[in-house]
């Protein structure tokens, strides 16, 4: 893969190739994808509370990762290049990978979790970084803003820190100058949006609203079955499972369900009377007004 200005001397290299002169530079984009329980799942715990009961759970691609994939595909279609999915997880994650490939990603790297029992956020990020480091020339790593199971929102910044790349998370809008190798991202803050400028390569976290993910078409679903999914493992990446386990800094001790909500008081009848009764209850019983 040839690209202009990607030899480390960022920004000052004159466009050499025809594509570069036309404002095009092929991009090599990784999208980190996680498989998570469908958001409609009723969460139940294992009898001893040590884990989530995963029996019968429907697994899907993390919703935010769909925005990350869509954005990667748009960038590839605009600039040429390739989109590579990278996922860490057990055998079931291949289905999520195929779903991403059916959206249009070119190929995938799947790090199976065989032998890696307990790994925390840092361990997970180290594994993903090791997988990325098997190849060179990445321009961007896209992630979802957060995974809707653990809700930790740590993977993107952790991967960025370990790679020593700049990051922009919770991204709502993106402009990429592939030749100048600069990115302008708008981020969602509390009650505000923020514009961030950063050089490539970078890690970007996709937020809902960034784009509208495409649905896989039937021909693309068929094509996805034949796309390359390269399987590897932590051991093959040179990581020691025992060491990763020993390095685990965040230890999950158990789970609990939220306390049940009290029996509701439901009012019917004349709206004005019901409203007046409700105000009284909010004042004297709930004591919040």
């Amino acid at each position, binding site marked *: 893969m040839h690209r202009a200005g990607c030899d480390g001397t960022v920004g000052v290299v004159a466009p050499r190739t025809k594509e570069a002169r036309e404002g095009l530079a092929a991009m090599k984009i990784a999208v980190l994808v996680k498989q998570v*329980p469908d*958001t*409609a799942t009723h969460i139940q715990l294992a009898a001893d509370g040590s884990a*989530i009961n995963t029996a019968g759970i429907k697994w899907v691609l993390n*919703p*935010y990762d769909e925005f990350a994939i869509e954005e990667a595909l748009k960038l590839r279609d605009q600039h040429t290049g390739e989109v590579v999915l990278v996922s860490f997880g057990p055998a079931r994650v291949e289905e999520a990978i195929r779903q991403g490939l059916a959206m249009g990603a070119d190929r995938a790297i799947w790090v199976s979790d065989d032998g890696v029992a307990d790994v925390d*956020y*840092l361990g997970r*990020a180290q594994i993903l970084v090791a997988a990325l480091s098997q190849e060179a020339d990445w321009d961007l790593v896209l992630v979802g803003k957060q995974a*809707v199971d*653990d*809700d*930790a*929102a*740590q993977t993107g*910044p*952790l991967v*960025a*820190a*370990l790679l020593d790349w*700049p*990051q*922009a*998370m*919770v991204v709502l809008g993106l402009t990429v100058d592939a030749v100048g190798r600069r990115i*302008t991202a708008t*981020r*969602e*803050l*509390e*009650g*505000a*949006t*923020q*514009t*961030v400028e950063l050089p490539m390569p*970078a890690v970007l976290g996709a937020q*809902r609203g960034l784009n509208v993910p495409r649905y896989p078409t039937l021909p693309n679903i068929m094509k996805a079955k034949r796309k390359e999914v390269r399987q590897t493992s932590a051991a093959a990446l040179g990581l020691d499972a025992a060491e990763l386990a020993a390095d*685990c*800094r*965040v*230890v*999950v*001790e158990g*789970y609990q369900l*939220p306390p049940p*909500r009290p029996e*509701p*008081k*439901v*009012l*019917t009848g004349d*709206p004005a009377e*019901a409203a*007046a009764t*409700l*105000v009284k*209850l909010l004042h004297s019983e709930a004591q*919040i*007004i």
Partner: protein
Amino acid sequence: MSGILVVLEQFEGRVRRVGLEACATAVRLRHGSVSALAFGAGADAVAEAVGALGVEQLLVLPDAPFDRYSSDAFAHAVAEVVRQVEPSLVLFGATAFGKDLAPRVSGLLKAGLASDVTGIESDGDDVAIVRPVYAGKAFQRVRIVGTPKLVSLRPNVQPVGVGEGPAALVSRPAVEVGAPRAVVTGTERNDETVELTEASRIVSGGRGMKASENFRLLDRLAAVLGAAVGSSRPVADEGWVPHSYHVGQTGKVVSPDLYVAVGISGAIQHVAGISNSKCIVAINNDPDAPIFKVANYGIVGDLFQVVPALTAALKAHLDAS
């Protein structure tokens, strides 16, 4: 290693509320002295607000490059201050700022981070931590091994109280960082509305509102209550309201004192985002709507009659008191 460092988010001398919540939490945990770190112009000015809560020392980095947020430069600075202060625990707010910064610091220090924490208690030298997962459908109990332990706190959960401590002692740590790479070049405030994740009262509308213009009914109710306005996801997808209104598992997870769900059926993804609310009120014309299962109070009726009636009743009540 001992003591707690609180990483604050401040703007023009005012600390974001979750920063005060973190300071109060740090003092409550009794793990030694509490210091705070503030960036940017006006950083010195927060000494009184945090001192009142019991923070002894305020470290400030007011000048360039810390006058503009940069995740990489700020993370390096926090890591450097942690090396100097050697706290056993570092607290962040789980806002856009803290969620961006804390995991990056975790990566630099190889220190464990528990994010979006709702429960934190001292347990000897250790801390017992509870954090919601699956958008609050379950809670996870975690421990962090080694020091420093990094924790980001969900806004609106920890009490602040009132304090009368003296202003914190201000000092400037010597921190060298390279040229920032990701740099904020502009910030645009959306409007004057209260941010949902920080609001103590929220009025939310769903598909039952029928049309964008009917949200005016909710604006009026919200104005009387001093509440922020939110929505279910389809309503934001329809463009009736901005995306920033969307509450739920794939939107904002909120924890107000009062959440009023109007014309919202109570789908599992919506409920996941509101289950931390202290009091939920549902207004819906379908007595079997699932929202009534999670509500504390409900009114079965046509929202186009109930909402104006409730607005009037609340106004009368508040005017009288």
